[in-house]
């Protein structure tokens, strides 16, 4: 059933400049090891008129409606909150690594330090204060946001689960791409 409170990332891909401030803001907030990035920024060089152009996709966990990670986790380390956030409780993780393969979005990493999985929990400690996650707060061009998927889909006709480098799939990801300029 559709969760009306489902939160998800809302990304204005047409404005992203690939600067990686979101990545670094996330690493700083979460005090991640240097080589671990929950949020990654990929460059795509796509055909355009008589040549190509660069488009960036900033992505992390999609907080899926039908999360592959949760399905396969034998230790029930994953859970879904009322607001639809898929959170990983690292205390329960045994490090089997099944979730890494089950996630179609490359969102789960194994930490070298303790051999357990880790991923974006949408900075729930911030969300629970009514604040935005670190990556959203860290985007200097303000093209990344978090909102309720349901209401964004209602309000913005261009909102979709399709973008360059990103597409809908069976796990029912919850990131929206919005386009305000043709």
């Amino acid at each position, binding site marked *: 059933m559709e969760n*009306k*409170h489902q*939160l998800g990332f809302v990304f204005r891909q*047409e*404005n992203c*400049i*690939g*600067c*990686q*401030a979101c*990545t*670094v*803001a996330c*690493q*700083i*907030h*979460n*005090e991640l090891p*240097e*080589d671990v990035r929950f949020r990654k920024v990929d460059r795509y*060089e796509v055909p355009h008129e*008589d*040549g*190509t*152009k*660069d*488009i*960036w996709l900033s992505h992390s966990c999609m907080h899926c409606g039908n999360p592959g990670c949760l399905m396969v986790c034998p230790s029930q380390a994953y*859970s879904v*909150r*009322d*607001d639809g*956030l898929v*959170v*990983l*409780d*690292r205390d329960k993780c045994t490090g089997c690594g099944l979730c890494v393969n089950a996630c179609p979005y490359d969102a789960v990493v194994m930490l070298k330090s303790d051999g357990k999985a880790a991923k974006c*929990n949408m*900075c*729930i*400690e*911030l*969300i*629970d*204060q*009514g*604040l*935005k996650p670190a990556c959203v*707060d*860290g*985007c*200097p*061009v*303000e*093209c990344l946001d*978090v909102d*309720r998927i349901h209401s964004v889909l209602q309000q913005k006709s261009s909102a979709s689960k399709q973008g360059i480098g990103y597409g809908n799939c069976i796990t029912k990801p919850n990131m929206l791409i919005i386009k*305000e*300029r043709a």
Partner: protein
Amino acid sequence: MKINRRTFMQGAGATAILSSLSGLTPGIANARTTGAHSNLLAKRNGEVVYHSCLRNCAARCLLKFRVQDGRMTYVSGAEEQAKTGKAPCLKGQAYVQYTYAPDRILHPMERVGAKGEGKWRRISWDEAYKKISDRLKSVITEHGSESILPYSYSGNYGAIGMSASGERFWNRIGSSILERKVCTYAAYDGLESVYGTFLGPDPEDVMLSDVYLNWGHDETVSNTIAIKLINKARDNGTKFLVVNPQRTPLCNQADVYLQPKPSTDVQLCAGIMKYLVEKDLVNHKFIQEQSIGYDDLLKRLDELSYDEIEQITGVPRAKMFEFAQILGENEKTMLRMGYGFQRNFNGARMSRAVAMLLGVTGNFGKRGNGLVYDNIHAGAGLNQSIASGKYMRKNKDAQRINMTEIAKAIHPTNPTSHDKPSKPIHAMIIYNGNPVVVAPDTNAVIEGMKREDLFVVGHDMVMTDSLQYCDIILPSASQFETDDIVGDYHGYYIQVCQKVIEPVGESKCNWTFFRELGQAMGFEDDVFKASNDDIIKELLDTDSPDYKGVTYERLMKEKFIKLDIPQPVLADGKYNTPSGKIEFSSKLMSDAGYHPVLDWQLPEEEMEPKERNLPFRLLSSGVPQRVNSSFYNVKYIRAIPAYYVKINPVDAKTYDVKDNDVVKLSNHRGEARFVVIVTEGVLPGSLMTPKCNWLRMNPNGTEGCTNSLTTDKLTDMGGCSAYHSTRVDLAKA
């Protein structure tokens, strides 16, 4: 959740944060906090201290630091400064990691062993002062004070940190004068030849513009926070035009993007103006009333055909026409000109041509119109002359050394300056700078710095490539460990930089260092007793009309003040040129030996044959994750690539290279290795590598870096660096 909030509210910042609670809360009333890391919030507590980012970036973000038990724990943008906003770029966000970098130098050291060998012995500040002052005194006795040279530029942009601190010492001692002209100066001359000024309109007025035209600027690198405003303007219908030989991120988002071959901007401007004239999209009334030389311009435009323009610039004429049409049919254009493209042998002449575009369209006299280049009103309005102790200099005619030519000035056998023999340099103090990898021709700089008879002192936060060749190394405090003020050079803001923490280790800020060194030299002048606060008050004690209503008390209380500069600028039709009008034909240009209207010469024509015939033009641009040679050691940033070369697919095929291959770029100055990125982001025949990368961090081998390749020949006018007028060869490594 309860526990979280309670812990959280103990912090001093609780009010501010509660007031910004977003609408997200209600739907998650029953949320469970499994997997939450409440401890991650602890760093956001504490006392709030305001400081401004002092990097060489026009944006000048106002930052809010949290301090707990004397330690900086968290940084964010100060959202009340709406222009800069709540999110600085990633460099600003990493300032805690920058400040507490594990490789920070914590105490003074003296070289043991040969220069560049990397062997050091710890000494005390007192010993350091004694050794430096003894050596400087003996150098003065033996060779005169001009044989001492400061080397510093933009590592710290504070009014004290950059200028007042060191300058007091240099003026008092009577050293050689360092011309700090890496950047903007060629374009000053180019713009002044047209309008008589390089000062422009309030960039926040882009909201009122019909067209935002970016010529050779990369906001992603040094003005990221301006992009959100540009985006808002675009959402309201402002058209966006871009010109850049390197496809910057914003080029991909433009309504029309032109990618000319490097340095062909004069010809491109000619093509655009030709179209505007033919389609009668010029502003006749404006031209008649407010300009001279328009007929000369028309004649000059006739000399070049569209075929020739297309061939020289590589820009398809249809694209150029589309661009010109948008420029011509709209009333208000804000032109943002970059600081990179004028770093070419024809830099002043290109800037002049760009400025002429707004002349023919008459884009003046209304808000939302005008050219934004280097809006230095805020910094220039400060009383720098008193604060820097200019009155103390006795040898006003001391020799001048252009910092771009540093290698020539410290040459082991044949020192020169401005193409003439110069007095040899015997002592140098480096601060706020990293000449080995920032100045052009790295190998030549190293050769000079290795001279046994050159005494070099380095004051920096970390072991840079330049400190390797010093005799004495001094730990520098970061900008956050001292008080200062600063103006931006994009808008019109003056801002505070309040001391966030005490200096780390035994480090000292620039002014403490120069003040104490002055005392060690025996200077008894009162100016060497002043505190940072005293200097800030002197800086603000200014006659500049821009500073009307700005007082020390007000600035300290409000943290940032926008200077009240009447808009629109250049509205009265009076220009500070010899004729008092916009000059399409300029005596300033012909006196300098160039064509008075538009000069067609390209940089290649000025290169020596062995360089001119190399296959690639090398663009060395800034990248968003670094600024000049800063941030190379900073956690989270150092892992982001900065040793790559962008190459067009056509060239990649010819040279049989693909993504991630390592290639060697070389010319007669040196060589360096980079990792390949194949992209149409650069044109065939051009390469791009990030500028000012460090030697010792190059993962492809430490024999070279970008500036191992670049030219130290100066621009046509203004004495500016011309890094981009460099050609290289490429081979698989």
